[in-house]
């Protein structure tokens, strides 16, 4: 165990580390110490962790605390040299410790990450991709993000959590061997079988033969096969020593590893073959072709044609091979007690050479189990250090350094390979595999090396180097500084045009054309500076600047800016599309497409993972590879075009980040080019990347989503138990996952609830969905998964379920409730109707009573009116008597005269006829008066008729004639011709007139001089008014106020009813009767009545 002899002041951190892809330099003696960390650490503080597997280094750099972990290789690896891993951490991310080595990303999970226990005794992957782990702490299912554990407490419950082995049978059932409590058979997460094992037996290995029978290897050295309901002891022949593993062979046979070689049992459990070996065999494995491999001591064995062929490992491991993972005949993985190596051999050779060692594993990882999953990740289970995943690097990096040694410029090298401006100050040439071939130090200027900002290999194979204020050129091995005394600014880009002219762009905006004969041909000034140059096939030159794109053609500049849709960001790269358009990589403004004079932008809103782009290259597969601050974005060109055309809302881009071996971009410097062989070379902050787009190992394994649990009331249930969801569940949570194990953190999900959601809900990396208070009904929950490389699952995981209605939501209950409600309503209605009816009857009787009362009142009123008239008639009696007596007297007189004439000797007949005529006339006259009087005082029913007031007045005055004469009252009538008719009872209205005139007469009786009664008719809208005005003494104030009250009178012997009756009559006719003092003295009574149109 190494010691940290300069450890000081740094504490071990149990948190999680960001992944890194760094590699240290080799040092034979103290390689693990990290003396060459390629980090400019001025004062490194290193401390050894208590585990001893990791050494932590920290420094304060750039004002920010950076930490570095130094992966320490296991001891045997030190013999072949050790790459010391230095992991740069720029923060604390929420993922497990992520280590990177040569060619592999390594991730280790321990109990800190949720692994139930550190001994991984078995790993299997089901067809759906689910990874099962057997530990001494129970069974665990792992999706790359979280461990779902089955143990003594879980459901289903295991009889023991000390698990020693796992196996899958052909039906896909999972067999689990507990140490002492038998076998368990799991199907779809449920225990379907539990087999006891022979007494006094500890199960160490488990295998299922091709007939589906379990075989166990017991601690006591026995091997048993389950035949029917009993265990068959397979060790009937002599034991070749302790067994240590099983591997099924064909036709129900079984291979077992033992201390003395390989043993084969036939299907009946009889030992039929024994291949003796020099060393003990600890592990067996079958390759894809069905060949049996064995770890024989520190070597390997292959069973072929019934013979065992031995292989040696170079260099040999320090301990015996404890786990085997054959990839093919010539490649395999080997685990030992100290680590993991990848072996390869030349075909036909008997020596396996160590291809690579996985030195990022904790020391003493003690590989116990190896598995290659369907995405080609290698999983290693340790004896006590947990679980590790090895993922091949997808991106080949070269000159990858830790720390800020960015590749500021890249170009192809004339000699082959790649020139890379490193750290600005030196040029290095690498071959395509990343080997450093050549180093070129730039000359000093003012004591400092010149810095290379732009590189160009021209068509004459000359290397142009753009620096600060100058341009260097290398031709062959001669490096010259060009005599361009031009006071150049910082060169930002170099380009060669079709005729061999070199364009030099500087940050201050100067653009110069340098002719083939090393002569300056043209100079332009682009306002705002230049970021990029791109010669077009048509001979024009495109220039990118700050928020600007300039086209230079035939010496003419045409500029495009934000008015043309160019993003307000520096155009760092310009790529000519095959259709003539331009792709503009802008730093902060996303990707813009420029065509026909305008640009349209795709940025984060359209699904671009990052908007700070520095280089865009296209591949032959129609994809754009865009270097961004977040990594390398890969997006199909047609997808971009579809988004620009509005046919898609966003792109489904793949982002290759650190997990794929891509560091962040090189501080925004547009470094990268497309090599002649089609490979893409990009610069990052840590060096260069070379990618063969055609061969890039995109993950083509479609993820299979799976709904794990459905939870309500805080208790998760398996999906099968969630077909019927009880009513009124407030929160229904679906936990789902997928076993895309390569980069689980980049796996995305989308889900929808048929019957509720109208469309897919892209939920990102979250592996659960929640719905609240679903109404009763049938639903289907669907979830789809997308792997890190944009591949969606073939079909969604589905769960159809029913949310049960609450009892009051059940149809028949609702029907019953409705019926009850209806019944209640009917009852209420009936009661209400009855109540209303009763009330109606009451009202009717009340109305009836009122009507009879009204009728009585009416009768009384009629009687009163009659009495009023009779009284009036009585008051008028003398005048009326006069009126009657007058003709009677005339008759009597005439008759008397006639009689006397007849007694004369010669009566004159003519005279007698005259007399008789007079008698008749006077009789009629008398009867007329009587008739009128009788009519006036007659009891009668009220009869409304159309009346002309003038006519009525003229018919009434005769009744009062004598009265008027007697009182010497002069009547003045002023009745307009067009006085409207009223609808009224003739007699009652006459009564009013008689009363008023009579009153006026009486009031005038005390007046000396003229006694005038003025009767005037007037019309107002809707009303007709009749004023009866006298010039009598008028109304005294005390009388005026209560003139119309009954029993108020000024007349001795008067009843005081006349005016009260009059008012009642007028009001019954809808009119008004009022009294007021007349202006010239006296009183004026006004009758107002509603009019009827003149007939």
């Amino acid at each position, binding site marked *: 165990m190494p010691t940290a002899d300069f450890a000081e002041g740094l504490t071990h951190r149990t948190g999680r580390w960001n992944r890194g892809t760094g590699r240290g330099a080799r040092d034979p003696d103290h390689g693990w110490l990290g003396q060459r960390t390629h980090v400019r650490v001025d004062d490194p503080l290193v401390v050894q962790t208590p585990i001893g597997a990791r050494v932590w280094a920290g420094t304060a750099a750039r004002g920010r605390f950076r930490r570095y972990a130094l992966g320490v290789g296991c001891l045997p690896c030190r013999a072949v040299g050790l790459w010391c891993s230095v992991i740069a951490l720029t923060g604390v991310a929420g993922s497990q410790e992520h280590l990177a080595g040569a060619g592999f990303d390594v991730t280790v999970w321990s109990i800190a990450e949720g692994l139930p226990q550190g001994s991984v005794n078995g790993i299997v992957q089901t067809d759906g991709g689910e990874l099962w782990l057997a530990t001494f702490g129970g069974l665990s299912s792992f999706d790359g993000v979280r461990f779902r554990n089955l143990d003594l407490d879980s459901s289903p419950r295991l009889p023991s959590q000390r698990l020693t082995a796992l196996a899958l049978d052909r039906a896909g059932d999972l067999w689990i061997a507990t140490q002492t409590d038998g076998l368990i058979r799991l199907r779809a997460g449920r225990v379907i079988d539990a087999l006891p094992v022979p007494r006094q037996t500890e199960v160490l290995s488990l295998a299922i033969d091709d007939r589906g029978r379990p075989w166990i290897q017991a601690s006591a050295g026995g091997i048993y096969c389950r035949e029917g309901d009993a265990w068959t002891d397979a060790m009937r022949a002599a034991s070749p020593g302790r067994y240590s593993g099983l591997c099924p062979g064909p036709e129900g046979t079984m291979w077992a590893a033992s201390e003395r070689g390989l043993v084969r049992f036939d299907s009946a459990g009889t030992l039929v073959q024994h291949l003796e070996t020099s060393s003990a065999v600890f592990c067996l494995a079958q390759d894809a072709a069905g060949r049996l491999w064995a770890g024989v001591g520190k070597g390997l064995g292959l069973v072929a044609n019934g013979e065992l062929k031995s292989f040696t490992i170079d260099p040999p491991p320090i301990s015996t091979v404890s786990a085997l993972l054959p990839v093919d005949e010539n490649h395999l993985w080997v685990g030992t007690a100290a680590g993991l190596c990848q072996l390869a051999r030349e075909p036909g050779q008997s020596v396996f050479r160590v291809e690579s060692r996985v030195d990022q594993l904790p020391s003493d990882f003690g590989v116990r189990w190896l598995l290659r999953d369907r995405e080609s990740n290698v999983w290693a289970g340790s004896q006590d250090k947990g679980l590790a995943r090895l993922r091949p690097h997808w991106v080949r990096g070269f000159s990858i350094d830790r720390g800020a040694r960015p590749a500021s410029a890249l170009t192809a090298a004339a000699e082959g390979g790649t020139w890379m401006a490193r750290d600005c100050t030196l040029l290095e040439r690498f071959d395509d595999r990343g080997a450093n071939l050549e180093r070129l130090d730039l000359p000093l200027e003012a004591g400092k090396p010149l810095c290379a900002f732009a590189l160009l290999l021209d068509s004459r194979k000359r290397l142009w180097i753009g620096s600060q204020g100058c341009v260097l050129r290398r031709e062959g091995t001669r490096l010259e500084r060009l005599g361009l005394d031009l006071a150049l600014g910082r060169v930002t880009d170099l380009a060669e045009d079709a005729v061999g002219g070199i364009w030099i762009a500087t940050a201050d905006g100067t653009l110069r054309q340098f002719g083939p004969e090393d002569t300056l041909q043209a100079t332009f000034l682009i306002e705002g500076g230049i970021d990029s140059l791109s010669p077009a096939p048509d001979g024009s030159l495109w220039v990118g600047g700050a928020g600007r794109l300039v086209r230079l053609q035939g010496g003419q500049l045409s500029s495009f800016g934000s008015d043309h849709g160019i993003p307000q960001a520096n155009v760092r790269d310009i790529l000519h599309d095959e259709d003539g358009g331009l792709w503009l990589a802008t730093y902060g403004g996303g990707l813009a497409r420029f065509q026909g004079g305008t640009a349209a932008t795709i940025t984060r809103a359209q699904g671009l993972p990052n908007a700070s782009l520095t280089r865009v290259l296209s591949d032959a597969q129609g994809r754009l590879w865009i270097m961004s601050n977040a990594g390398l974005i890969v997006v199909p060109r047609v997808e971009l075009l579809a988004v620009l055309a509005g046919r898609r809302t966003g792109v489904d881009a793949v982002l290759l980040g650190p997990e794929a071996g891509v560091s962040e971009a090189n501080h925004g410097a547009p470094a990268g080019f497309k090599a002649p062989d089609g490979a893409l070379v990009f610069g990052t902050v840590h060096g260069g990347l070379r990618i063969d787009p055609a061969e890039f190992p995109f993950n083509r394994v479609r993820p299979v989503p799976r709904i794990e649990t459905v939870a309500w009331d805080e208790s998760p249930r398996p999906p099968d138990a969630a077909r019927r969801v009880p009513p009124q569940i407030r929160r229904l949570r679906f936990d789902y996952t997928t076993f895309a194990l390569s980069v689980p953190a980049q796996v995305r999900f989308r889900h929808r609830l048929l019957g509720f959601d109208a469309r897919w809900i892209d939920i990102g990396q979250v592996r659960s969905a929640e719905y609240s208070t679903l109404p009763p009904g049938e639903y289907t929950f669907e979830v789809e998964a997308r792997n890190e490389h944009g591949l969606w699952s073939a079909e969604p995981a589905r769960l159809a379920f029913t949310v049960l209605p609450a009892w009051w939501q059940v149809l028949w209950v609702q029907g019953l409730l409705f019926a009850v409600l209806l019944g209640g309503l009917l009852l209420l209605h009936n009661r209400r109707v009855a109540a209303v009816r009763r009330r109606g009857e009451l009202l009717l009787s009340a109305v009836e009573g009122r009507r009879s009362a009204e009728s009585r009142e009416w009768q009384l009123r009629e009687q009163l009116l009659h009495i009023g008239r009779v009284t009036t008639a009585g008051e008028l009696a*003398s005048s009326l008597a006069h009126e009657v007596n007058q*003709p009677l007297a*005339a008759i*009597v*007189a005439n008759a*008397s*005269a006639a009689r006397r004439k007849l007694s004369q000797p010669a009566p004159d007949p003519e005279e007698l006829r005259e*007399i008789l005529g007079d008698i008749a006339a006077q009789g009629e006259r008398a009867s007329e008066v009587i008739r009128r009087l009788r009519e006036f005082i007659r009891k009668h029913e009220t009869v409304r008729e159309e009346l002309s007031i003038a006519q009525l007045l003229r018919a009434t005055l005769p009744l009062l004639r004598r009265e008027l004469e007697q009182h010497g009252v002069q009547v003045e009538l002023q009745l307009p011709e067009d006085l409207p008719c009223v609808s009224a009872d003739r007699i009652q209205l006459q009564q009013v007139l008689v009363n008023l005139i009579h009153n006026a007469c009486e009031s005038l009786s005390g007046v000396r001089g003229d006694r005038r009664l003025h009767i005037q008719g007037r019309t107002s809208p809707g009303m007709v008014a009749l004023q009866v005005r006298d010039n009598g003494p008028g109304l005294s104030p005390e009388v005026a106020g209560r003139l119309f009250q009954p029993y108020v009178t000024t007349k001795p012997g008067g009843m005081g009813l006349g005016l009260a009756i009059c008012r009642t009559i007028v009001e019954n006719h809808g009119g008004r009767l009022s009294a007021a003092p007349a202006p010239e003295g006296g009183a004026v009574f006004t009758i107002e009545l509603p009019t009827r149109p003149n007939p």
Partner: protein
Amino acid sequence: MTHVGNVFLVDDDEALRRATTRQLAACGHTVIAYASAEEFLKHFDPAKPGCVLLDLRMPGTSGLELQRMLRERGSCIPIVFLTGHADVPTTVFAMKEGAMDVLEKPVSESQLLAALQRALERDALLRREQGDRAELERRFASLTPREREVFRALSLGARNKQAAQEMGITERTVKLHRAHVLSKMGAATLADLGRIAERLGPR
């Protein structure tokens, strides 16, 4: 038919006026009809004997007013009232004012004629009395002032001596004046003179 005379008929009712005129004329009366009180007064001659048959109620000047106006003129012509409705107060008032009769219409012929007869008789009587008194007045007017004093004193029953004392003259002179008075007044005795004085009223 015992007594006929002039009947002055005042009635505003033309028909009744005509009928009454006709009736009374048939009875022998001389009827002079007027339609109103004013018309009557215009043609009224106190010297004409007769009676007035008057309607109590008339437009304009009523019957009672006419009665009053006639009395104010000193006419004692008897008045018979006719009324359509003879209420008691009016009747009493009319009678107090000297009406001969108040008849309610329609009136029977006999009643009417009787009332008219009484009125005419009364008129005749009054006219006779009125003629005697006029003679007495004329004789009284012929008396000297001293004779009038003696007349007053003697008509009051004073003795000659008392009269002489009151007047401050001698008894002899009184006797002389007494003789003149008796002579002038056409009285034979002092008792006759007393009756005459009574008829003449206080002077």
